């Protein structure tokens, strides 16, 4: 009798539900969750942990994303639903192309790369800046190429809008999220006149000034776009503009190359 009862008691064991392990890893920060969301150039996978969003990539084969994410973050990523507030913040950030209050987990990146990405995140929607501008803004004017590499390794594209950083000759340069062709697609969707920018650059024009205010800007700066044809003055360099009595815009901050 005692044997039968204890055998039956031992038979009351049950396997833990499969959701336990992922939930524990997420809650302890040993894994990130990821979720599929709509993006401006197709669906994306967004990985997130307790510090915020850690990765964004075009949605493809989940197994490949999981392997790449693990290599990149040094911890596994598991399919999981984000808390509703985070999901809403992610959608807002992707739609607007700016992090806003969304937390970003740039954990493994160098200080330099982190500074580059935070600077890129300041570029307003519908505007572009050059790699050289980013380098100058973070106090490393000589590090233009390194800025390019840092942006190429942006783990959180679309939300950290590296597509708004272009070459100073008016060509757009590289883009890592699905290839270079996506860069003009994203910029045009935000209202950037990519072709107009290229034409200006081909004529050697890098800055536009207003004869009424005496201020000069990057061509895509929202102040430059308000200048009427009659008052628009074109400049090739910052020195050129300053020698003609113009001062740099305080918002888009042209820097001497």
């Amino acid at each position, binding site marked *: *009798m*005692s044997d039968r*009862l*204890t055998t*039956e*008691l*031992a*038979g*009351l*064991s*049950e*396997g*833990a*539900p499969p*959701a*336990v*392990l992922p*939930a*524990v*890893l997420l*809650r*302890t920060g*040993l894994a990130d969750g990821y979720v599929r969301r709509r993006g401006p150039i197709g669906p994306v996978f967004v990985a997130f942990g307790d510090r915020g969003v850690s990765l964004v990539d075009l949605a493809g084969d989940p197994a490949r994303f999981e392997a790449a994410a693990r290599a990149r973050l040094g*911890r596994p990523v598991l399919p999981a639903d984000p808390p509703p507030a985070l999901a809403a913040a992610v959608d807002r950030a992707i739609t607007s192309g700016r992090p806003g209050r969304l937390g970003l987990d740039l954990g493994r990146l160098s200080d330099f790369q982190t500074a580059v990405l935070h600077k890129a995140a300041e570029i307003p929607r519908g505007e572009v800046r050059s790699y050289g501008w980013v380098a100058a803004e973070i106090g490393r004017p000589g590090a233009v190429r390194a800025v390019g590499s840092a942006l190429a390794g942006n783990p959180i594209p679309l939300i950290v809008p590296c597509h708004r950083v272009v070459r100073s000759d008016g060509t757009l340069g590289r883009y890592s999220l699905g290839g270079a062709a996506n860069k003009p697609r994203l910029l045009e969707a935000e209202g950037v006149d990519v072709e107009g920018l290229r034409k200006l650059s081909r004529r050697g024009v890098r800055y536009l000034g207003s004869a009424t205010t005496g201020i000069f800007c990057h061509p895509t700066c929202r102040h430059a776009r308000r200048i009427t044809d009659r008052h628009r003055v074109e400049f090739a360099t910052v020195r050129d503009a300053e020698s003609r009595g113009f001062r740099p815009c305080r918002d888009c901050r042209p820097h001497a190359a």
Partner: protein
Amino acid sequence: MHDDLTTRLAADLDEAFPDLVRLVQDGVYSGVLRMTGNPADAEDVTQEALVRAYRALRGYPPERIRALRPQGWIWTIAANLCRNRARARSRRPETALPAGIDAVEDRRAGTEEQAVGSLDRERLAGHLAALPWPMRAAVVLRHVVGLGYPEIAAALDRPTGTVKADVHRGLGRLRAAVESEERTA
């Protein structure tokens, strides 16, 4: 074989912790399920116990981690959570389920034979759930989870002799309940 796991936990907690979860999760879930009598509570409490275990281990020096026996140690955390959950349930009886019969049966929809076996299991689980707390916890840890008396005593923070007596008396009550059922059947 757990020596290897505790060595790895002491060396790199984050790397080895998922293996600790894999090692103990079935035992924890089984025990919690039979202590709380409710699959939803059991999943919740199991998760919470494992998360707290991780936080506790982060504060332990390596030699303390190396000396652990994980399957017993986890119950020093999980047993309290079960008792608190059971108390909360008894204060809000309208949300308590008798013995989680519905959910468990859903998961085990199988042959006729399995269904009969599952009914027996749930009847026994129901008798178990009717035992008072310290007795139920002791019987579950001894005979469902399979811990030794010193580990049970540590988990429940009671003397080993008391725990042994609880298991003995608990088995006696279960036996009586099963026998009276069989006579009326």
